């Protein structure tokens, strides 16, 4: 399948039998509308944001010798044997598309975003994007431009922070002890 005509196409990748199009964030709505109308991807099945903060940062560790010498696995490292390929920006927003017709073609569009860099809403292309984009904003803090109703979806309205970010603490809420003001 040729995707040369996709507006804002940066790169096409094939891995694990899946096709990924990396698209310029500024032209995402155009690209989505094009893929829907010209390639028949009529359903947005998923929108998954990923935070790559600290990607590869724990360094290489494990029982296998590394350039820096033999590095025993430190607790809470990812136990990497090789450093993963670096990512261009902190956040990736992955649109998973599906064509409801013979062959069940699937496609992933990836958009790279910095922290607080907004991305245009695709609700006008697929109405299903509404909640998925709210979820991406709520849990990952990706600002969606032009979303008709960008409120928190999963967390409370007055919640602070975006829990699925890598720098969000796991430990839960601070505990108040008796005798403490």
């Amino acid at each position, binding site marked *: 399948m040729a995707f040369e005509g996709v507006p804002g196409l940066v790169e096409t990748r094939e*891995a*694990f039998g*899946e096709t*990924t199009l990396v698209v310029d964030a500024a032209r995402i709505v155009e690209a989505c509308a094009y893929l829907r109308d010209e390639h028949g991807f*009529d*359903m*947005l*099945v*998923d929108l*998954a944001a*990923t*935070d*790559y903060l600290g*990607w*590869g940062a*724990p360094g290489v560790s494990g029982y296998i010798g590394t350039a820096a010498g033999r590095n025993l*696995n430190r607790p809470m*490292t*990812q*136990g*990497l*044997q*090789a450093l*993963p*390929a670096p990512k261009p920006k902190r956040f990736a927003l*992955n649109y*998973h598309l*599906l064509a*409801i017709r*013979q062959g*069940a073609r*699937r496609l*992933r569009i990836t958009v790279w975003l910095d922290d607080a860099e907004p991305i245009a809403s695709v*609700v006008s292309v*697929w*109405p*299903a994007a*509404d*909640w998925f984009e709210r*979820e991406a904003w709520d849990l990952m803090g990706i600002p969606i431009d032009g979303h*008709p*109703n960008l409120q*928190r*979806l*999963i*967390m*409370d309205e007055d919640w602070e922070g975006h*829990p*699925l970010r890598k720098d*969000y603490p*796991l430990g839960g809420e601070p505990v108040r002890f008796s005798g403490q003001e």
Partner: protein
Amino acid sequence: MAVAAQSGRADPIYAGTRIPSPIPTQLDVDPAVRGTDDILTVNFGPNHPSTHGVLRLVVDLDGEIVVGIAAKVGYVHTGFEKNMEQKSWWKAITYAPRIDYLAYQANELVFVLAIEKLLGLEVPPKATWMRMLLAELNRIHSHLVWLGTAALELGAISMFWYTFREREMVLDLSELVAGYRMHTRYFQTGGLAEDIPAGFYPECRKFVEWMPKAIADYDGLLQKNEIWGERTRGLGLLNRADAIALGQTGPVLRASGVDWDLRRDDPYLFYDRVRFRVPVLPHGDTYDRYRVRIEEMRASVEIVEQCLDRLERMVGEPWIADDRKVVLPPREELHTSMESLIHHFKIVTEGYRVPEGEVYVAVESPRGELGCYVVSDGGTRPWRVKFRAPSFAALEATATTVQGAYIADLIAIVGSLDTVMGEVDR
């Protein structure tokens, strides 16, 4: 289908689109009547017994008619995806079935398939057939719970007792094979956690013989029930184009006339080697969603039967891949082989490494397309896990389906979308 034709409902369902604009998932009250005293805003849930969990609907009523609706979710958010990032791949499997607690096998399956796709691991045929069998038993289980509660909500309490009788049989089979009634964690990376116990096949045969009779009983109780028909036919409409635009999958999509089933159209496991029917109905209402689920249970029984035919001939075959870097060595080897002991220790403590990459795997869960997007950095823990929950998308259709409905029908309509809040909120 003959039954649908008799009812004399118009086709197509409605012309154009009923997705509200500008907010597709929210029905706003007409500004002309907004300020008048006629509009009553009612909080429905979050702890209403018919919401199948904790779903809150803010409903605007004009008399008894729903003129505005907004769904609020997040009451059972437990941070599954965040937690799974902190666990080794091996331990994270335990979390998956708890996300959609009625379709636990489907959740377990999709996560295990995602890991195996990254690892490039071959699964023995016996394990694949057993996975299919359990996934289909689980579909029956999930639809039974839906059917029982949906009928209960409309006052037909006896359905609940019958469906839960059969559900109990499925849970007993789960217990027999995995030791747990729900959330079995029986699917292991590479195959199954244990061999299939010998007593399973005859028990499962008994169930397969019994189940079609039970489904006929359900039909006898509901099919000609005037109240059930009146309260489901022509209600909760969703046409073909709107269903696709709103990302609907599974029974909701098939009841809107879209002939689409991942098991047939995008086969995984061995679904391309079994024969089964995909029920599709054209009216896009609550009634058709109910019919689709009933017919799906029949199809599932057929698939279970075909899996059993194969499995019974596979006694003694391996049930898990022989890859010592990923799969635990056989217990008895630990006493004699140093290498096995090391492998065992490494897998249990540190976990196995999964190659760097990202995959999206989708299966047909009882509620529709259940997807799992997984990112690995090459380490022993997932970098990111995201579940594409069919219920999440289903709830986006509430604003379209309940337009102009009576408040009393709201329960039946939202119920017919068959949402499980565990997977909506994750």
